């Protein structure tokens, strides 16, 4: 008896309890007809659809197309962001030239540029990649720039007292000191890139997760839509994990990581 009651108590305290209950209600809703299936498919059906999509290779091929867009957009965005941050962070004229423009850019919501980008780049791959690139520039720029400016002046002074040249100072002190900030920016850029991907893929896509969702919407296949939402979530988690792996390698000197 006491075993049973302690089990009940530990279940009652478990953080998994409320998601499980939600899942149960979600499952029961469509099955009993309380929720029409065209409104929301039951989890069991979603799982089945997921299995089918994986088995047919449809999910993987579309996922690869979407990942390719994110990778291309991020590569451009991060490169431009890093270049601009170095320019603004390491030189006064660079700061005067670059920073005001970046602050103006920050006030424009990237997604509001979608119509303009369609006019400029058409409805192929180019506007999708351009939107992702444009959105991912700023987090990298802002964090790296403030990271460079925030490097401990006492360390710079200490290194300067040993006769380091300006280039050596930048290489040995400023850039390693700004690296943690760059990684924070990178993490933001990754999540922004996935956010923009979702919207960009709604533009006349013939492949990719967005294409899958649009198609499913036309046929009211809520099960496929839910599968795609799950994939988006997994993409976000993977992006976060990737940056964390880079962090543990690049910031190995930090005590929290050293002690592990």
């Amino acid at each position, binding site marked *: 008896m006491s075993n049973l009651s302690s089990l009940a108590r530990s279940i009652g305290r478990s953080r998994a309890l409320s998601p499980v209950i939600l899942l149960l209600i979600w499952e029961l809703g469509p099955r009993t007809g309380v929720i029409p299936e065209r409104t929301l498919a039951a989890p069991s059906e979603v799982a089945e659809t997921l299995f089918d999509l994986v088995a047919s290779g449809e999910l993987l091929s579309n996922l690869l197309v979407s990942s390719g867009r994110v990778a291309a957009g991020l590569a451009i965005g991060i490169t431009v962001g890093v270049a601009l941050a170095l320019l603004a962070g390491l030189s006064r004229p660079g700061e005067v030239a670059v920073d005001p423009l970046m602050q103006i850019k920050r006030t424009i919501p990237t997604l509001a540029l979608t119509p303009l980008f369609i006019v400029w780049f058409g409805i192929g791959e180019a506007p999708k990649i351009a939107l992702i690139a444009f959105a991912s520039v700023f987090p990298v720029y802002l964090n790296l720039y403030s990271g460079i400016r925030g490097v401990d002046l006492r*360390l710079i002074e*200490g290194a300067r*007292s040993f006769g380091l040249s300006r280039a050596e100072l930048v290489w040995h002190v400023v850039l390693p000191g700004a690296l943690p900030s760059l990684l924070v920016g990178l993490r933001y850029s990754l999540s922004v890139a996935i956010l923009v991907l979702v919207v960009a893929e709604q533009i006349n896509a013939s492949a990719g997760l967005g294409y899958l969702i649009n198609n499913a919407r036309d046929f009211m296949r809520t099960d496929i839509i839910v599968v795609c939402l799950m994939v988006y979530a997994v993409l976000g988690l993977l992006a976060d994990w990737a940056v964390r792996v880079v962090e543990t390698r690049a910031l190995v*000197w930090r005590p929290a990581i050293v002690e592990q």
Partner: protein
Amino acid sequence: MDAAVGFSANFSPLPSSSPESVVRLRDFTRRFGDNTIISSLNLDIAAGEFVALLGRSGSGKTTLLRTLAGLDDVKGQDVTVPGSRAVVFQDARLLPWKRVWRNVALGLRGADIRQRAEAALQEVGLGHRLDAWPLTLSGGEAQRVALARALVREPQLLLLDEPFAALDALTRYRMHDLVLALWRQHRPAILMVTHDVDEAIALADRILVLDQGRIVTEQRIDAARGERSAVSGPLRERLLSILGGHEEPTASVVPFRLAAGQQA
């Protein structure tokens, strides 16, 4: 014993420049806006001399040290400092992203920098922490790395900016011995900024007291280190009274009185 100390009652502001001086400042003045930090300062430090610089906060000690370190611009002023100099700051200022030996090797040139860094670290007793990360070092260890990093350059002038102020008493005494041993081995001229009168008396050949940007006292100590207990008492009294820090502690204590109603 007074003879060994040689109190100089009227201190001459213009020392005769000896040919072997490595540091030479003449009529050196430093202003920030309307604030004059250092005014008309003359200073000579001989090769291999150990000089301690005492002064209250705001007396210009740090500004003087920064000038000698070449960290501040000295345009148009009569300042001579040797080309090879190194600084040990109060906070060790190690780069946390470089392993200990790379910190020591920072800015060194040549093929054998790893060996040189290793030798310097062994000299300060840290041969076993070559590949440690600086943030895992204790305060005393970090300061010893900073000493190794300064000495590996074989400087003619070693500048110490309150290097032991943040350390506990026992570690501080060990560091005193280490600094003296390294100084005897390498013979750089040393200027050590400190606020600790006893530390200055224990280590230095000559003690300078800086106040409001001027050297107000210069005191040479001729007694050998370790045989200074006889002279240190009166010298400490004198230096403390010049520094203005030697007030009777009771004078500033306000006696605590119970309010009339609370009296038993």
